[in-house]
Protein backbone atom coordinates (compact mmCIF):
# COMPACT_ATOMS: atom_id res chain seq x y z
CA UNK A 1 0.00 0.00 0.00
CA UNK A 2 2.94 2.34 0.62
CA UNK A 3 3.07 5.14 -1.89
CA UNK A 4 6.85 5.05 -1.92
CA UNK A 5 6.93 1.75 -3.81
CA UNK A 6 4.95 3.20 -6.71
CA UNK A 7 6.76 3.84 -9.96
CA UNK A 8 5.78 6.76 -12.17
CA UNK A 9 3.83 5.77 -15.32
CA UNK A 10 5.23 5.57 -18.85
CA UNK A 11 8.59 7.11 -18.08
CA UNK A 12 8.63 8.50 -21.62
CA UNK A 13 7.38 11.94 -20.74
CA UNK A 14 8.58 14.34 -18.05
CA UNK A 15 6.21 14.75 -15.12
CA UNK A 16 3.59 17.49 -14.95
CA UNK A 17 3.41 17.32 -11.14
CA UNK A 18 3.41 18.90 -8.67
CA UNK A 19 0.17 20.84 -9.00
CA UNK A 20 0.20 24.17 -7.19
CA UNK A 21 -3.12 25.72 -6.23
CA UNK A 22 -2.67 29.22 -4.85
CA UNK A 23 -5.20 31.59 -3.32
CA UNK A 24 -8.12 30.01 -5.12
CA UNK A 25 -11.54 31.67 -4.92
CA UNK A 26 -14.64 30.57 -6.73
CA UNK A 27 -17.86 32.54 -6.51
CA UNK A 28 -21.17 32.24 -8.32
CA UNK A 29 -23.76 35.02 -8.21
CA UNK A 30 -22.04 36.67 -5.26
CA UNK A 31 -21.82 33.47 -3.20
CA UNK A 32 -18.30 32.35 -2.43
CA UNK A 33 -18.11 28.59 -2.75
CA UNK A 34 -14.34 28.11 -2.51
CA UNK A 35 -12.37 30.51 -0.36
CA UNK A 36 -8.61 31.17 -0.38
CA UNK A 37 -7.64 27.60 -1.09
CA UNK A 38 -3.91 26.96 -1.35
CA UNK A 39 -2.44 23.51 -1.61
CA UNK A 40 0.33 21.74 -3.45
CA UNK A 41 -0.39 18.24 -4.72
CA UNK A 42 2.64 16.03 -5.28
CA UNK A 43 3.19 12.83 -7.20
CA UNK A 44 2.80 9.38 -5.69
CA UNK A 45 0.31 9.16 -2.88
CA UNK A 46 -3.43 8.90 -3.27
CA UNK A 47 -5.00 12.21 -2.29
CA UNK A 48 -8.57 12.04 -1.05
CA UNK A 49 -10.61 15.20 -0.71
CA UNK A 50 -13.02 14.49 2.10
CA UNK A 51 -15.88 16.51 3.47
CA UNK A 52 -19.63 16.68 3.89
CA UNK A 53 -21.97 17.31 0.97
CA UNK A 54 -21.72 20.89 -0.22
CA UNK A 55 -18.19 21.38 1.10
CA UNK A 56 -16.90 22.30 -2.36
CA UNK A 57 -15.12 19.01 -3.08
CA UNK A 58 -16.35 18.67 -6.66
CA UNK A 59 -15.68 22.32 -7.43
CA UNK A 60 -12.19 21.91 -6.07
CA UNK A 61 -11.59 18.98 -8.41
CA UNK A 62 -13.08 20.80 -11.43
CA UNK A 63 -10.94 23.85 -10.75
CA UNK A 64 -7.81 21.70 -10.45
CA UNK A 65 -8.64 19.85 -13.68
CA UNK A 66 -9.33 23.12 -15.48
CA UNK A 67 -13.00 22.51 -16.26
CA UNK A 68 -14.01 25.76 -14.61
CA UNK A 69 -12.14 29.02 -14.29
CA UNK A 70 -11.47 30.34 -10.78
CA UNK A 71 -12.78 33.76 -9.76
CA UNK A 72 -9.33 34.48 -8.35
CA UNK A 73 -6.15 32.55 -7.73
CA UNK A 74 -4.12 30.19 -9.88
CA UNK A 75 -3.86 26.54 -10.73
CA UNK A 76 -0.37 25.74 -12.02
CA UNK A 77 1.26 22.51 -13.10
CA UNK A 78 4.86 22.92 -12.02
CA UNK A 79 6.57 19.85 -13.40
CA UNK A 80 8.93 19.95 -16.40
CA UNK A 81 6.22 18.40 -18.58
CA UNK A 82 3.68 21.10 -17.73
CA UNK A 83 3.22 22.10 -21.36
CA UNK A 84 1.56 18.72 -21.95
CA UNK A 85 -0.56 18.94 -18.78
CA UNK A 86 -3.91 18.85 -20.60
CA UNK A 87 -3.09 15.55 -22.26
CA UNK A 88 -1.71 13.92 -19.14
CA UNK A 89 -4.84 14.15 -17.02
CA UNK A 90 -8.17 12.42 -17.04
CA UNK A 91 -11.31 12.68 -14.98
CA UNK A 92 -14.11 10.32 -14.01
CA UNK A 93 -17.38 11.87 -12.95
CA UNK A 94 -19.94 10.85 -10.36
CA UNK A 95 -22.41 10.09 -13.11
CA UNK A 96 -20.52 8.55 -16.01
CA UNK A 97 -20.93 10.40 -19.29
CA UNK A 98 -20.83 7.74 -21.98
CA UNK A 99 -21.30 8.30 -25.68
CA UNK A 100 -24.21 6.64 -27.46
CA UNK A 101 -22.12 3.92 -29.03
CA UNK A 102 -20.59 0.63 -28.00
CA UNK A 103 -18.38 0.15 -24.96
CA UNK A 104 -15.35 -0.39 -27.19
CA UNK A 105 -16.17 2.66 -29.32
CA UNK A 106 -16.32 4.81 -26.20
CA UNK A 107 -12.74 3.95 -25.40
CA UNK A 108 -11.41 4.21 -28.94
CA UNK A 109 -13.10 7.63 -29.27
CA UNK A 110 -11.11 8.87 -26.27
CA UNK A 111 -7.91 7.38 -27.70
CA UNK A 112 -8.55 9.09 -31.03
CA UNK A 113 -9.08 12.42 -29.31
CA UNK A 114 -5.75 12.00 -27.53
CA UNK A 115 -4.01 11.31 -30.82
CA UNK A 116 -3.39 7.57 -30.45
CA UNK A 117 -2.80 6.20 -33.97
CA UNK A 118 -5.67 4.18 -35.39
CA UNK A 119 -3.63 0.98 -35.63
CA UNK A 120 -2.78 1.09 -31.93
CA UNK A 121 -6.35 1.62 -30.74
CA UNK A 122 -7.95 -1.86 -30.90
CA UNK A 123 -5.24 -3.39 -28.73
CA UNK A 124 -5.51 -0.68 -26.11
CA UNK A 125 -9.32 -0.86 -26.16
CA UNK A 126 -9.22 -4.59 -25.54
CA UNK A 127 -6.66 -4.21 -22.79
CA UNK A 128 -8.72 -1.50 -21.10
CA UNK A 129 -11.93 -3.53 -21.26
CA UNK A 130 -10.17 -6.61 -19.89
CA UNK A 131 -8.70 -4.68 -16.98
CA UNK A 132 -12.20 -3.44 -16.14
CA UNK A 133 -13.68 -6.93 -16.37
CA UNK A 134 -15.79 -5.84 -19.33
CA UNK A 135 -14.09 -7.91 -22.02
CA UNK A 136 -17.30 -9.71 -22.94
CA UNK A 137 -19.27 -6.49 -23.30
CA UNK A 138 -17.20 -4.66 -25.90
CA UNK A 139 -20.05 -4.51 -28.44
CA UNK A 140 -22.72 -3.64 -25.89
CA UNK A 141 -24.22 -0.14 -26.33
CA UNK A 142 -22.72 1.81 -23.43
CA UNK A 143 -26.03 3.42 -22.51
CA UNK A 144 -27.65 0.02 -22.09
CA UNK A 145 -25.15 -1.19 -19.48
CA UNK A 146 -25.90 -1.26 -15.74
CA UNK A 147 -24.85 1.65 -13.54
CA UNK A 148 -21.85 -0.27 -12.19
CA UNK A 149 -20.76 -1.37 -15.67
CA UNK A 150 -21.08 2.20 -16.93
CA UNK A 151 -18.85 3.54 -14.18
CA UNK A 152 -16.32 0.76 -14.75
CA UNK A 153 -16.34 1.64 -18.45
CA UNK A 154 -15.82 5.33 -17.66
CA UNK A 155 -12.89 4.34 -15.45
CA UNK A 156 -11.52 1.98 -18.12
CA UNK A 157 -11.74 4.80 -20.67
CA UNK A 158 -9.78 7.15 -18.40
CA UNK A 159 -7.28 4.39 -17.63
CA UNK A 160 -6.73 3.65 -21.33
CA UNK A 161 -5.39 7.17 -21.72
CA UNK A 162 -2.52 6.36 -19.32
CA UNK A 163 -2.95 9.62 -17.44
CA UNK A 164 -0.29 10.80 -15.06
CA UNK A 165 -3.04 12.31 -12.89
CA UNK A 166 -6.54 10.88 -12.56
CA UNK A 167 -9.27 12.96 -10.94
CA UNK A 168 -12.29 11.06 -9.62
CA UNK A 169 -15.39 12.84 -8.41
CA UNK A 170 -17.37 10.64 -6.01
CA UNK A 171 -16.88 7.72 -8.39
CA UNK A 172 -18.98 5.27 -6.38
CA UNK A 173 -21.66 7.57 -4.99
CA UNK A 174 -24.59 5.87 -6.68
CA UNK A 175 -23.37 2.29 -7.01
CA UNK A 176 -24.29 -0.97 -5.28
CA UNK A 177 -21.70 -2.57 -2.95
CA UNK A 178 -20.37 -5.07 -5.50
CA UNK A 179 -19.78 -2.30 -8.04
CA UNK A 180 -18.20 -0.12 -5.34
CA UNK A 181 -15.74 -2.92 -4.59
CA UNK A 182 -14.93 -3.38 -8.29
CA UNK A 183 -14.43 0.34 -8.87
CA UNK A 184 -12.25 0.69 -5.77
CA UNK A 185 -10.03 -2.17 -6.82
CA UNK A 186 -9.68 -0.58 -10.27
CA UNK A 187 -8.65 2.69 -8.62
CA UNK A 188 -6.12 0.75 -6.57
CA UNK A 189 -4.74 -0.92 -9.72
CA UNK A 190 -4.51 2.42 -11.53
CA UNK A 191 -2.63 3.80 -8.54
CA UNK A 192 -0.27 0.83 -8.56
CA UNK A 193 0.38 1.50 -12.22
CA UNK A 194 1.88 4.80 -11.16
CA UNK A 195 -0.99 7.22 -11.81
CA UNK A 196 -1.52 9.96 -9.26
CA UNK A 197 -5.04 9.61 -7.82
CA UNK A 198 -6.96 12.68 -6.67
CA UNK A 199 -10.50 11.82 -5.64
CA UNK A 200 -13.39 13.22 -3.69
CA UNK A 201 -15.67 11.29 -1.40
CA UNK A 202 -18.05 11.94 1.43
CA UNK A 203 -17.82 8.28 2.42
CA UNK A 204 -15.57 7.87 5.45
CA UNK A 205 -15.12 4.15 4.91
CA UNK A 206 -13.99 4.71 1.35
CA UNK A 207 -11.56 7.41 2.44
CA UNK A 208 -10.09 5.01 5.00
CA UNK A 209 -9.76 2.29 2.39
CA UNK A 210 -8.17 4.41 -0.33
CA UNK A 211 -6.48 7.49 1.10
CA UNK A 212 -2.78 8.03 1.61
CA UNK A 213 -3.40 11.65 2.46
CA UNK A 214 -6.58 13.53 3.24
CA UNK A 215 -7.60 17.06 2.37
CA UNK A 216 -10.57 17.87 4.61
CA UNK A 217 -12.86 20.49 3.14
CA UNK A 218 -15.76 22.25 4.80
CA UNK A 219 -17.79 25.22 3.55
CA UNK A 220 -15.28 25.91 0.79
CA UNK A 221 -12.33 26.05 3.15
CA UNK A 222 -9.44 23.63 3.40
CA UNK A 223 -9.67 22.79 7.10
CA UNK A 224 -7.01 20.19 7.45
CA UNK A 225 -4.44 18.32 5.43
CA UNK A 226 -2.77 15.26 6.88
CA UNK A 227 -1.50 11.78 6.11
CA UNK A 228 -4.48 9.43 6.22
CA UNK A 229 -3.48 7.53 9.33
CA UNK A 230 -2.86 10.68 11.30
CA UNK A 231 -6.10 12.28 10.07
CA UNK A 232 -8.25 9.34 11.11
CA UNK A 233 -6.44 8.64 14.41
CA UNK A 234 -6.02 12.11 15.77
CA UNK A 235 -7.42 14.90 13.63
CA UNK A 236 -6.00 18.26 14.57
CA UNK A 237 -9.14 20.33 14.04
CA UNK A 238 -12.45 20.22 15.89
CA UNK A 239 -14.45 20.15 12.60
CA UNK A 240 -12.56 17.11 11.33
CA UNK A 241 -12.97 15.35 14.67
CA UNK A 242 -16.71 16.09 14.62
CA UNK A 243 -16.99 14.82 11.02
CA UNK A 244 -15.18 11.63 11.99
CA UNK A 245 -17.56 11.15 14.92
CA UNK A 246 -20.38 11.26 12.40
CA UNK A 247 -21.79 14.59 13.51
CA UNK A 248 -23.47 16.97 11.09
CA UNK A 249 -21.25 19.99 10.66
CA UNK A 250 -22.77 23.45 10.87
Amino acid sequence: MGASTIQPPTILAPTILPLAIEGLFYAVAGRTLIESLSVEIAAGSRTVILGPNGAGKSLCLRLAHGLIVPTAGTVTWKGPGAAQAKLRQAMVFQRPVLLRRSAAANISYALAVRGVPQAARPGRVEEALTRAGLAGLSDRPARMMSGGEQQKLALARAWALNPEVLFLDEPTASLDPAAVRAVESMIQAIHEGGTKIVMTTHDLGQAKRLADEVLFLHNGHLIERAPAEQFFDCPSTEQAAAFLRGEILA
Partner: protein
Amino acid sequence: MNEFGDAFYTALMMIVSANPDLMEIVGLSLRVSFSAVLIAAVLGMPLGAALAVFAFPGRRAVVVAINALMGLPPVVVGLTVYLMLSRGGPLGVLGLLFTPSAMIVAQVILVMPIIAALTRQTVEDLWFEYREQLVSLGVTPRRAVWTMLWDGRITLLTAFLAGFGRASAEVGAVIIVGGNIDHLTRVMTTAIALETSKGDLALALALGFVLLAVSFAVNAAAQILRDMVVRAQG
Protein backbone atom coordinates in the same frame (compact mmCIF):
# COMPACT_ATOMS: atom_id res chain seq x y z
CA MET B 1 -70.13 14.95 -47.11
CA ASN B 2 -70.35 12.69 -50.14
CA GLU B 3 -67.39 14.51 -51.65
CA PHE B 4 -65.10 13.06 -49.01
CA GLY B 5 -66.29 9.55 -49.67
CA ASP B 6 -65.94 9.98 -53.42
CA ALA B 7 -62.56 11.62 -53.07
CA PHE B 8 -61.34 8.87 -50.80
CA TYR B 9 -62.52 6.27 -53.28
CA THR B 10 -60.91 8.13 -56.19
CA ALA B 11 -57.65 8.43 -54.25
CA LEU B 12 -57.68 4.75 -53.43
CA MET B 13 -58.33 3.81 -57.04
CA MET B 14 -55.54 6.09 -58.28
CA ILE B 15 -53.11 4.57 -55.83
CA VAL B 16 -54.17 0.97 -56.42
CA SER B 17 -54.07 1.37 -60.20
CA ALA B 18 -50.76 3.19 -59.97
CA ASN B 19 -52.13 5.97 -62.17
CA PRO B 20 -49.10 7.12 -64.21
CA ASP B 21 -49.88 10.83 -63.94
CA LEU B 22 -50.27 10.49 -60.20
CA MET B 23 -47.06 8.48 -59.89
CA GLU B 24 -45.19 11.14 -61.83
CA ILE B 25 -46.49 13.88 -59.57
CA VAL B 26 -45.81 11.93 -56.38
CA GLY B 27 -42.35 10.99 -57.63
CA LEU B 28 -41.44 14.58 -58.40
CA SER B 29 -42.84 15.75 -55.06
CA LEU B 30 -40.72 13.24 -53.20
CA ARG B 31 -37.64 13.98 -55.27
CA VAL B 32 -37.90 17.75 -54.77
CA SER B 33 -38.73 17.61 -51.07
CA PHE B 34 -36.22 14.90 -50.15
CA SER B 35 -33.44 16.64 -52.07
CA ALA B 36 -34.27 19.93 -50.39
CA VAL B 37 -34.38 18.39 -46.91
CA LEU B 38 -31.12 16.49 -47.47
CA ILE B 39 -29.31 19.63 -48.60
CA ALA B 40 -30.88 21.63 -45.78
CA ALA B 41 -29.80 18.99 -43.27
CA VAL B 42 -26.23 18.89 -44.58
CA LEU B 43 -26.05 22.65 -44.13
CA GLY B 44 -28.37 23.17 -41.18
CA MET B 45 -27.37 20.40 -38.80
CA PRO B 46 -23.69 21.38 -38.47
CA LEU B 47 -24.79 25.02 -38.26
CA GLY B 48 -27.26 24.27 -35.46
CA ALA B 49 -24.76 22.10 -33.59
CA ALA B 50 -22.04 24.72 -33.95
CA LEU B 51 -24.39 27.33 -32.50
CA ALA B 52 -24.88 25.11 -29.47
CA VAL B 53 -21.20 24.25 -28.95
CA PHE B 54 -19.25 27.36 -29.95
CA ALA B 55 -19.40 30.48 -27.81
CA PHE B 56 -18.88 33.69 -29.77
CA PRO B 57 -20.11 37.27 -29.55
CA GLY B 58 -23.47 37.68 -31.24
CA ARG B 59 -24.40 34.05 -30.80
CA ARG B 60 -27.74 34.87 -29.21
CA ALA B 61 -28.61 37.21 -32.06
CA VAL B 62 -27.93 34.46 -34.60
CA VAL B 63 -30.07 32.03 -32.59
CA VAL B 64 -32.95 34.51 -32.49
CA ALA B 65 -32.60 35.16 -36.23
CA ILE B 66 -32.68 31.48 -37.10
CA ASN B 67 -35.66 30.87 -34.84
CA ALA B 68 -37.45 33.76 -36.55
CA LEU B 69 -36.62 32.37 -40.01
CA MET B 70 -38.53 29.19 -39.13
CA GLY B 71 -41.65 31.20 -39.88
CA LEU B 72 -40.56 32.42 -43.33
CA PRO B 73 -43.64 32.78 -45.55
CA PRO B 74 -43.21 30.41 -48.52
CA VAL B 75 -44.56 32.93 -51.03
CA VAL B 76 -41.96 35.48 -49.97
CA VAL B 77 -39.19 32.90 -50.36
CA GLY B 78 -40.67 31.90 -53.71
CA LEU B 79 -40.76 35.49 -54.89
CA THR B 80 -37.19 36.16 -53.76
CA VAL B 81 -35.85 33.06 -55.47
CA TYR B 82 -37.92 33.96 -58.53
CA LEU B 83 -36.27 37.39 -58.69
CA MET B 84 -32.83 35.84 -58.28
CA LEU B 85 -33.35 33.22 -60.96
CA SER B 86 -35.42 35.19 -63.48
CA ARG B 87 -33.64 36.11 -66.66
CA GLY B 88 -32.79 39.61 -65.48
CA GLY B 89 -31.81 38.43 -62.00
CA PRO B 90 -28.30 37.91 -60.66
CA LEU B 91 -28.48 34.14 -61.16
CA GLY B 92 -30.55 34.27 -64.33
CA VAL B 93 -27.74 32.87 -66.47
CA LEU B 94 -28.14 29.52 -64.73
CA GLY B 95 -31.50 29.08 -66.45
CA LEU B 96 -33.00 27.39 -63.43
CA LEU B 97 -36.35 29.16 -63.25
CA PHE B 98 -39.34 26.84 -63.74
CA THR B 99 -37.24 23.72 -63.16
CA PRO B 100 -37.26 21.24 -60.26
CA SER B 101 -33.86 22.66 -59.27
CA ALA B 102 -35.41 26.05 -58.60
CA MET B 103 -38.04 24.37 -56.45
CA ILE B 104 -35.33 22.59 -54.48
CA VAL B 105 -33.47 25.86 -53.93
CA ALA B 106 -36.61 27.54 -52.60
CA GLN B 107 -37.39 24.64 -50.27
CA VAL B 108 -33.83 24.50 -48.95
CA ILE B 109 -34.23 28.13 -47.89
CA LEU B 110 -37.54 27.33 -46.21
CA VAL B 111 -36.38 24.18 -44.46
CA MET B 112 -32.83 25.00 -43.37
CA PRO B 113 -33.80 27.35 -40.52
CA ILE B 114 -36.17 24.72 -39.13
CA ILE B 115 -33.52 22.02 -39.16
CA ALA B 116 -30.84 24.36 -37.80
CA ALA B 117 -33.06 25.62 -34.97
CA LEU B 118 -34.26 22.18 -33.90
CA THR B 119 -30.69 20.84 -34.11
CA ARG B 120 -29.41 23.67 -31.96
CA GLN B 121 -32.01 22.94 -29.29
CA THR B 122 -31.28 19.20 -29.30
CA VAL B 123 -27.52 19.63 -29.26
CA GLU B 124 -27.66 22.28 -26.57
CA ASP B 125 -29.39 19.83 -24.21
CA LEU B 126 -26.91 17.10 -25.11
CA TRP B 127 -23.92 19.42 -24.78
CA PHE B 128 -25.02 20.35 -21.28
CA GLU B 129 -24.67 16.68 -20.37
CA TYR B 130 -21.45 15.99 -22.34
CA ARG B 131 -19.49 19.22 -22.05
CA GLU B 132 -17.34 18.50 -19.00
CA GLN B 133 -16.46 14.98 -20.10
CA LEU B 134 -15.51 16.06 -23.62
CA VAL B 135 -13.53 19.06 -22.42
CA SER B 136 -11.77 16.76 -19.96
CA LEU B 137 -10.82 14.42 -22.80
CA GLY B 138 -9.47 17.37 -24.75
CA VAL B 139 -12.06 17.36 -27.54
CA THR B 140 -11.86 20.42 -29.79
CA PRO B 141 -15.12 22.34 -30.42
CA ARG B 142 -14.94 21.21 -34.04
CA ARG B 143 -14.84 17.56 -33.15
CA ALA B 144 -17.48 18.16 -30.48
CA VAL B 145 -19.89 19.36 -33.19
CA TRP B 146 -19.61 16.04 -35.05
CA THR B 147 -19.77 14.04 -31.83
CA MET B 148 -22.95 15.85 -30.81
CA LEU B 149 -24.56 15.26 -34.20
CA TRP B 150 -23.74 11.56 -34.08
CA ASP B 151 -24.84 11.08 -30.50
CA GLY B 152 -27.99 13.10 -31.11
CA ARG B 153 -28.84 11.16 -34.27
CA ILE B 154 -32.05 9.62 -32.97
CA THR B 155 -33.50 12.90 -31.75
CA LEU B 156 -32.26 14.70 -34.85
CA LEU B 157 -34.42 12.45 -36.99
CA THR B 158 -37.29 14.56 -35.70
CA ALA B 159 -35.67 17.70 -37.07
CA PHE B 160 -35.31 15.97 -40.42
CA LEU B 161 -38.98 14.95 -40.38
CA ALA B 162 -40.13 18.43 -39.40
CA GLY B 163 -38.17 19.74 -42.36
CA PHE B 164 -39.71 17.16 -44.66
CA GLY B 165 -43.18 18.04 -43.40
CA ARG B 166 -42.60 21.67 -44.16
CA ALA B 167 -41.18 20.99 -47.61
CA SER B 168 -43.75 18.49 -48.78
CA ALA B 169 -46.71 20.53 -47.54
CA GLU B 170 -45.84 23.99 -48.83
CA VAL B 171 -47.26 25.28 -52.07
CA GLY B 172 -46.44 29.00 -52.15
CA ALA B 173 -42.74 28.76 -53.01
CA VAL B 174 -42.79 25.88 -55.48
CA ILE B 175 -45.72 27.28 -57.46
CA ILE B 176 -43.92 30.60 -57.99
CA VAL B 177 -40.48 29.26 -58.93
CA GLY B 178 -41.69 26.02 -60.52
CA GLY B 179 -44.67 27.32 -62.38
CA ASN B 180 -46.76 24.15 -61.95
CA ILE B 181 -45.90 22.95 -65.44
CA ASP B 182 -47.47 19.61 -66.30
CA HIS B 183 -44.96 16.75 -66.53
CA LEU B 184 -42.15 19.10 -65.49
CA THR B 185 -42.71 20.96 -62.25
CA ARG B 186 -46.12 19.82 -61.08
CA VAL B 187 -46.02 18.45 -57.54
CA MET B 188 -48.82 17.32 -55.25
CA THR B 189 -49.50 20.64 -53.59
CA THR B 190 -49.50 22.64 -56.83
CA ALA B 191 -51.69 20.00 -58.47
CA ILE B 192 -54.16 20.30 -55.59
CA ALA B 193 -54.20 24.07 -55.98
CA LEU B 194 -54.78 23.74 -59.72
CA GLU B 195 -57.55 21.12 -59.49
CA THR B 196 -59.29 23.19 -56.83
CA SER B 197 -59.26 26.29 -58.99
CA LYS B 198 -60.54 24.23 -61.95
CA GLY B 199 -63.39 23.06 -59.76
CA ASP B 200 -62.41 19.39 -59.72
CA LEU B 201 -62.72 19.14 -55.98
CA ALA B 202 -62.83 15.36 -55.91
CA LEU B 203 -59.53 15.05 -57.70
CA ALA B 204 -58.03 17.78 -55.52
CA LEU B 205 -59.20 16.05 -52.39
CA ALA B 206 -57.97 12.70 -53.68
CA LEU B 207 -54.53 14.22 -54.21
CA GLY B 208 -54.80 15.56 -50.69
CA PHE B 209 -55.36 12.06 -49.38
CA VAL B 210 -52.36 10.82 -51.32
CA LEU B 211 -50.24 13.62 -49.87
CA LEU B 212 -51.40 12.64 -46.41
CA ALA B 213 -50.63 8.98 -47.10
CA VAL B 214 -47.12 9.83 -48.30
CA SER B 215 -46.49 11.93 -45.21
CA PHE B 216 -47.81 9.13 -43.04
CA ALA B 217 -45.59 6.57 -44.76
CA VAL B 218 -42.47 8.69 -44.40
CA ASN B 219 -43.10 9.25 -40.70
CA ALA B 220 -43.89 5.58 -40.10
CA ALA B 221 -40.68 4.58 -41.85
CA ALA B 222 -38.75 7.02 -39.69
CA GLN B 223 -40.35 5.66 -36.54
CA ILE B 224 -39.43 2.10 -37.50
CA LEU B 225 -35.87 3.20 -38.26
CA ARG B 226 -35.66 4.96 -34.91
CA ASP B 227 -36.93 1.91 -33.01
CA MET B 228 -34.38 -0.26 -34.78
CA VAL B 229 -31.55 2.09 -33.91
CA VAL B 230 -32.67 2.39 -30.29
CA ARG B 231 -32.91 -1.37 -29.94
CA ALA B 232 -29.46 -1.87 -31.44
CA GLN B 233 -27.56 1.01 -29.87
CA GLY B 234 -29.40 2.27 -26.81
